[in-house]
């Protein structure tokens, strides 16, 4: 026995195991350290600029003080409209895939295409909406920005709706059918209720996704230095303002960009944590 445990082969296997397991630990520490580093810098740089005036004043010209009120409002409005357009569309499409056509060819194709849209480059979505709306209307507009965000919302909602509806036990559907409910009511009154938490999670994740999206807004909603919620004109948004201010040579603007970045990150992280808690609650109940 003693010779086995001291054999060079055994020793080298153990050594190799120890090295690779150390690497696994190191890799995890490496991955997590980025999260810590990014959040630490964000808090450090952004927190000092965080004050009430950020939420009450307009974006300043270079060299003077100001806030981020107009981009925050613009982002909120465009995000809201995008969710209002994208969510019903996504839920209906997901409903077809999970309820009416679970096994038909259309569903397979839509699922495949939807998964590709889910990871398609968002800047391409911006080009698409530019061609379809901005070029046709002749000017940049908040509507175009909202539509391009909606195009990003749809695949996220389709995916979660389908996944959540498929998880609803068929016995619930059978029970609903047995008391004579027509299929549409069975879906809206029974299946949706059973899958509600999951579907809300999907919408929250979609909001988290689009609230940081910059690329599709660059040439749809463009940007606006002033207070404007006119959706037929260019509208400022937080990510685009961060992009513009961060790349500017002015210190005040860079400071505001950090503060804006902090606001977005906190909002996005809060949304995804709430979404996760909702999902976890559902699993445990």
């Amino acid at each position, binding site marked *: 026995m003693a010779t086995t445990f001291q054999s060079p082969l055994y020793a080298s296997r153990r050594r190799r195991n120890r090295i690779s397991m150390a690497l696994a630990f190191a890799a995890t520490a490496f991955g997590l350290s980025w999260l810590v580093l990014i959040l630490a810098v964000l808090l450090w740089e952004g927190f000092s600029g965080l004050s009430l005036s950020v939420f009450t004043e307009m974006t300043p010209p270079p060299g003077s003080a100001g806030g981020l009120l107009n981009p925050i409002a613009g982002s909120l409005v465009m995000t809201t409209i995008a969710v209002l357009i994208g969510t019903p569309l996504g839920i209906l499409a997901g409903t077809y895939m999970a309820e009416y056509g679970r096994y038909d060819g259309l569903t397979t194709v839509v699922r495949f295409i939807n998964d590709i849209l889910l990871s398609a*480059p968002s800047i391409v979505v911006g080009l698409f909406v530019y061609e379809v709306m901005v070029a046709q209307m002749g000017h940049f507009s908040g509507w175009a920005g909202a539509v391009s965000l909606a195009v990003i919302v749809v695949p996220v909602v389709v995916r979660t709706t389908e996944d959540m509806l498929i998880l609803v036990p068929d016995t619930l559907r059978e029970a609903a059918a047995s008391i004579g409910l027509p299929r549409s009511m069975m879906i809206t009154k029974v299946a949706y209720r059973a899958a509600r938490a999951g579907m809300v999670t999907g919408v929250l994740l979609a909001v988290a996704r689009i609230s940081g999206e910059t690329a599709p807004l660059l040439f749809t909603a463009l940007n606006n230095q002033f207070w404007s919620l006119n959706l037929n004109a260019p509208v400022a948004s937080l990510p685009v303002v961060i992009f513009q201010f961060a790349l500017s040579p002015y210190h005040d603007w860079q400071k505001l960009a950090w503060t804006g970045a902090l606001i977005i990150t906190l909002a996005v992280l809060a949304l995804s944590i709430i979404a996760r808690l909702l999902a976890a609650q559902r699993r445990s109940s």
Partner: protein
Amino acid sequence: MQPTGRPPVVDVALQGSGITVADQVDRARVLQRLRLGDAAYRQLTRAAAITVLIILGGIIVSLVWGSLPALRTFGVSFLYEDAWNPVTEKFGAIAPIYGTIVTSIIAMLIAVPVGLFIAVFLTELCPMWLRRPVGIAIELLAGIPSIIYGIWGLFVFAPFLQQHVQPFLIALFGELPVLSYLFAGPPYGIGILTAGLILAIMVLPFVTSISRDVFEAVPPVLKEAAYGLGCTTWEVSRYVVLPYARVGVIGGVMLGLGRALGETMAVTFVIGNAHRISGSLLAPGTTISATIANEFTEAVGDLYTSALIALGLILFVITFIVLAAARLMLMRLNARVGG
């Protein structure tokens, strides 16, 4: 509405409960309305599902339509010419294509091994109570918007690389034949390498979470059998788990690659936007998405705009192929698990 012969079952059941003919007519009307509503809802959901296809079709058609002027002017040479001159209106896509591919390769070279090791940690080594928190933390990394990576990369990461890492790399590889070429030139901070590193951090969560999911799907019996033979944890991971999960891992890697190829904002901040191909990884370059983001709103003239849209079309075709391949692999995997 009155049927002939035997009364319908429903009517038999309702006999003697005071139902009048008028009620029955009402009932028929209600049923008719429900039937209509049902059909309408079905068609509505179907239309929504088809809309998803229309969106994709619209993206392809509008990109092709928008890039026609450029493609007609330059033809196939658009793909391999390296000129990018808005003044003389000469455009070629090879420099952005090169930048896109090289930054993505750097990102994958780092993210894939690190992601796989994290997945091994999460499935084999990590104590149960720590698994969820670590997994969630890695996934939060995926939730951080790309513009945040961009601003962080520009103000924190690039100066750090410039002052500490790049001089070291230049000194280290300066004497070696091939590597001295890759790591030549002054340390700019921003450039291809920086963009690749930022992309690696962004892609890492995707690779990690899919690898973890497919590692967890490996039947415990297989692992237990290997442990029973006396295999070490490393040997189980390398020779049992990884081969079993191979297809899923490749799918996850390609999904991450699709992200890296199309990522815009983080790259735009740190790549330097220089339309040239240089051998050194430290030199500024550009990618397809960064070019579009930087120049689209300033593009004057139809040909310039059209050339940028043609770049978008190339990007979309590349990512479409990569993502489609990734999905097909993952679908095949699901079919195997399900069947």
